[in-house]
């Protein structure tokens, strides 16, 4: 008996020590350079802020989060390699990438390893492939584009619409979803203009759009290209409504485009200017930590960590498969899980439903014009 006591004490100490040091490893794979740097950096900082908050509050089920950050360089091949590295390193969950093209090739790695994978990618096809481990942090294009088209046809009373989009997975997916929704709303597409990722000069696309004499213009490009496009639209005195989806009225685009962003309308799933106190408080905390105003990608990154927290707490254990199962069909109320900022429902595909907004840029700031309620009941 006496001989067993010290051994039991050692085992107990070791167990206690292992519990104290046990951590939930999460891998953040984001576009920290290249054309997606703005989106990726915002997402990464959002995750970083949430991790610090959760750890300061005692972690999840008593265990701290341990986040590693990797740069995909906005390159799908690099993203795929990093996803493989993340699952080999035993990540409990993966956050990213944000580019749809990168996500399309990297998510096979997390699916194979049964690792929940949260993404800010918008391409509709990502959640249509039956992958039970993929979870969005924003609307799919199939949900957001009909809302945009309805606003253009209904509120703006437009009949003719020109489209400028970026020729990548994100842009083509958005363009297809928008054109389909626009035609369903009775709109005529007067110009369908493809541009390249990283394009510097938008004089020709803007001229083409102007020449097609539309009632409004829909722009769907990445952040930097959106800013350059808006500057060119201003240069060419484009006087019709300019409408976008989320990115076009993002904070980074507003900063880069300057006065050219004024007047732009957009449907946004997330905005730091939403008339919701929790979002305002998040914005203040983010700004204090990173010295700039976050865009919607910052909110995506931040809330996605709280989605994971809600999933783990709903599963009641640190089991990846159980957490993924728990997240499907989960309704997370902001009153119970304040980090999600707004009530959110996750469906069986990993797609989201929550309130969204129509915003307009005025004097360099987003102003919410309309709040569109979620379909799900909480």
């Amino acid at each position: 008996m006496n001989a067993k006591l010290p051994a039991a004490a050692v085992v107990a100490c070791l167990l206690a020590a292992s519990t104290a040091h046990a951590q939930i490893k999460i891998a953040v794979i984001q576009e920290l350079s290249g054309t997606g740097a703005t989106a990726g950096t915002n997402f990464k900082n959002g995750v970083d802020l949430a991790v610090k908050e959760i750890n300061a509050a005692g972690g999840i089920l008593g265990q701290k989060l341990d986040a590693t950050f990797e740069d995909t360089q906005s390159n799908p091949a690099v993203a795929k390699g990093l996803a493989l590295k993340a699952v080999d390193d035993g990540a409990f969950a993966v956050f990213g990438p944000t580019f749809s093209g990168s996500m399309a090739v990297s998510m096979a790695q997390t699916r194979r390893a049964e690792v929940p994978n949260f993404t800010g990618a918008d391409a509709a096809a990502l959640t249509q492939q039956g992958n039970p481990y993929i979870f969005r942090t924003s609307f799919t294009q199939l949900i957001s584009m009909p809302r945009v088209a309805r606003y253009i046809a209904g509120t703006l009373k437009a009949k003719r619409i020109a489209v400028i989009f970026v020729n990548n997975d994100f842009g083509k997916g958005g363009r297809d979803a928008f054109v389909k929704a626009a035609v369903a709303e009775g709109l005529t597409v007067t110009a369908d203009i493809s541009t390249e990722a990283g394009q510097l000069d938008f004089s020709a696309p803007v001229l083409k759009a102007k020449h097609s004499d539309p009632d409004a213009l829909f722009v769907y490009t990445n952040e930097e290209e959106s800013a350059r496009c808006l500057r060119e639209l201003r240069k060419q005195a484009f006087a019709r409504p300019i409408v976008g989806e989320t990115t076009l009225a993002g904070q980074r685009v507003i900063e880069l485009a300057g006065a050219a962003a004024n007047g732009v309308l957009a449907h946004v799933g997330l905005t730091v200017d939403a008339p919701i106190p929790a979002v305002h408080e998040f914005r203040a905390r983010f700004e204090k930590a990173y010295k700039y105003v976050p865009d919607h990608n910052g909110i995506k990154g931040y809330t996605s960590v709280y989605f994971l927290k809600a999933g783990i707490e709903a599963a009641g254990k640190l089991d990846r498969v159980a957490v993924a199962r728990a997240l499907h069909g989960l309704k997370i109320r902001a009153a119970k899980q304040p980090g999600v900022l707004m009530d959110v429902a996750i469906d069986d595909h990993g797609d989201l439903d929550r309130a969204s907004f129509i915003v307009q840029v005025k004097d360099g700031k987003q102003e919410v014009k309309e709040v569109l309620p979620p379909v799900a009941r909480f």
Partner: protein
Amino acid sequence: MSDFLQLLVSGLATGSIYALAGLGFTLLWQASGTLNFAQGEFVMLPAFGILALSGLGLPLAVAFALTCAVAVVVLGWGFKRGIADPLLRSGHMPVVVATLGLSIALRNAVRAGYSAEAHPFPSVFGDDLFHIGGVAVTRIDVGTLVAALVLVLGTQAFLARTVTGRAMQAVAQDADSAVVVGIDVPRMILYTFAVNAVLACAAALLVTPSYLAKFDMGESLGTKAFFAAVIGGFNNARGTLLGGIVVGVCENLAAAYVSAAYKDAVALALFLFVLLVRPQGLLGKPVERKV
């Protein structure tokens, strides 16, 4: 017609920037046989220099002047002493390889040390809009075009009409003969590198408001500037101006009337066509060399 004019004005402004950066290629090549494939990054670095100094609260003009001073030392004297001088002893190819490596190193240094994101950049001209003959023109387009023209033509006038400029040209034409007539050849070559650094700063000031300041902004600019210099004539400053404008305008017209996807291919196609049909460039003169 107004669409065409609109594209023309915009293409002229873009082309004049290509010419300004391309002029650096011709100057360095003529003066010292240096082919600088980091020329685009020589425009990107001053852009971040101006941005950083503006961030400290300095007026744009002061930030530009200070950046020019630093660029003359770093991109002029430093580049000459550190890379061009030691490597040129072994021929042109080591310099080409070294400047290609330098361009990659500079891009990554800015990405890692400053930021990978694009940054807004103040415009020296403002973006007021006015209409001329049905064409919407901004002050930035006109200002860029005029400033670039003044700089290119001013540089050429300096080379042709001042004692120092003629001495620099003499060195470019025949360094050995220049020594015989008493010209301080190393000093003239140093002046050329300094002029190139100042032109790069000017190009940064003009182009960055539209391109946005980003670590990889020099990549395509450097390539287009090289094409412009070859198309116009590698041994003729006015040729570089013409080459830049031809590339800028043709790119814009192709993007509007063919497809934006072929825009970058236009400069390459022109480059190959000129090399095949008129290797000395549109305004260049054939040069015979003993081999």
